[in-house]
């Protein structure tokens, strides 16, 4: 099994985290969060992947070829649903910030310190 997909997952994770750290815009922040979550999709799918495997659909499967792990694929689907919910919430907060305060910059919204 190649190490390459895990590297991709790692790069996406770090890149997303860097984006969250450095973001100056709520929408950018939400997208960075999604980039970070994409790394978990890659990681999960890779965990279940088999070289020379086939899709985990037993009806009409070719005999003799192993099926890839269906569990991680359903985990990924669940994960996608979760990420959509989080993304929608953060975006709606960004929208509210813009409507009521005319800015998307977290630092301009910053009232609470200490």
């Amino acid at each position: 099994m190649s190490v390459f997909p895990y590297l991709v997952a790692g790069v996406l994770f770090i890149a997303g985290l860097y984006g969250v750290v450095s973001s100056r815009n709520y929408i950018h922040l939400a997208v960075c969060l999604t980039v970070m979550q994409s790394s978990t999709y890659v990681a999960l799918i890779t965990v279940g992947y088999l070289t020379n495997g086939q899709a985990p659909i037993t009806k009409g499967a070719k005999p003799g070829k192993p099926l890839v792990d269906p569990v991680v694929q359903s985990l990924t689907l669940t994960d996608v649903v979760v990420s959509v919910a989080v993304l929608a919430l953060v975006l709606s907060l960004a929208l509210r910030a813009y409507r009521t305060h005319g800015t998307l910059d977290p630092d301009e919204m910053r009232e609470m310190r200490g």
Partner: protein
Amino acid sequence: MAEVTTLVPLLVVVPLAVAVLLTATSHWLPAWVPDLAAILAAAAVTAMSVVLVVATRTHPIVYWFGGWRPVHGLPIGITFIVEPLGASLAALAALLTTASLVFSWRYFEEVGHLYHALVLAFLAGMVGFSLSGDLFNIFVWLELMSVAAYALCGYQVHQAAVIQGAVNFAIINSLGTFTMLMGLAMVYASTGQLNLSAIGHQLSANPPGSAVVVGFSFITVGFLTKAGAVPFHFWMSDAYAVASAPVGALFAGVMSDLAYHTFARVYWDGFAPGFGVHAAAVIRGVLLAVAVLTALLGAVMCALQADLKRQVAFLTISHGGIFFAGIALLTARGLAGSTLYLITDGLLKAALFLSLAIVIKGLGSSDELALHGRGRQRSQVLPMAVFITVGLGLATLPPFGTFLSSALIYDSPGYGWLPPILVLAAALTSATVLRSTARIYLGWGPAHDPLLTSRKPDEPEEGEPEESETGLGLRTRLWLLTPALGLVLVAYGVAFTPSVAHELVSAAAALQHPQATEQLVLHGQQSPPPVVGSYAPSASAWAYGGSAAGGSLLLAALGLWWRRLGRRVEGVALVLARGLKAVHDGSVGDYAVWFAAGTTVLAIAWTGLVR
């Protein structure tokens, strides 16, 4: 037993079903129907959880959804494991939800038709999170509860601080849950299992390698972020300070602290079987360090706040550290004490948050300094009594509920230096509650204090409905105070349930016996419950409890009149306070840096676990 088992799925089905029905129909219903339906659903979950706590005292219940039982010890379905500790936390979550819904009936003038559905989804998430026996389902319940919580935190409010708090909450929590999911993928890659007992079985056969250890540290980071342990706690003060009172009571009372307990379950069932004695010592050391740091930093930050809600937020962080210390000791008494502490303390914190709302609404500010002496009225005697009772309860006043819980932690064998630190944290946080009570209701101490953040008194409050000049009527005030009073009574009284300490210690001992859980989950075989001796607090525990209660009074006085100590003390205190506050700067980017640093340090600290 057959009848009791059918209650298990209802714990999450009832709130979710009522939530869906309310979402679909509440546009057309009169306003009182959603209130009543939600209260009834939450009360039903409370009653069912209590029945399950009693029914599972000797033998836990394992419930397989859809009847997909394991085949030859190989789990294919997903499961709830109902044992007394998890079930009593579900009962706590449901009871607080009931109280919070009763409170919000009169508290909000216009609450919108999604509020009740969100609260019930939040409740279902918390219940599933504390009962699920499957790593991925724990993640899903965690996300359900978190997403509902983000929405509730930013619900129907337009102030900048609220949006900032809700975004910080959502972003930092999501970082935590993604990291947890990454760790979960690593553990699944190595073990091929998601069921906690099956993971434990795999790891005891094949000792954990580096992937499992990194995965375990990522999972731990996920739980610690939700729980608000240092240095993952920064979102918490921002989110709790802006949440409306009924929501904040749920956040501070139960939400974050549940993660500590679920972490304990995940550790014992899933990972403890694979780690040897040496690894357990490393884990204990690292977890205790996190716990002590959390308890102390939270307590100091709590004492430095002028905003009443931020005080509760940091109090929650600090007391979370105390619960975590009990869990980190890896003893049955520690875990039992930490669970009982979580329950009694959670009831008090929720009561505190609800009573704060009455202060904020009635007196018009949430700033301790701005409210100086404003509570000196006949009508404010009852709230003041509630605050003093809660404050002393938080200071582990013997012989009530919080004292019994902390005594269980103090009487755990091992670390003699730990109890004094925990006593200090409990005393300092409760001293802050007593200090602000004295300042508001008695007018003691100065009206200006450079140590506390001082907002200008004429600025409007955050996260609260605007209050008219007239204040609250007597009937509304009584209605709003009743849930808080009920919670305080339960918190004080729970210690007098016959043999409660003994039952909890034996439940904790059973939880810390993963082989027995594995037999039950994977093979359906009940083991005899472990034998533990009866428990009564030792003399030193009484001394610790007494000194925490006494110390809280002394520290409260010190907090009011500390400037009489002289100029030099004042200068040092101010420099330290400014430094600590500068770190909590409200910037989500900075919080993410702390998150990344904490994750790295934890992962490195645990490389010693690889054999």
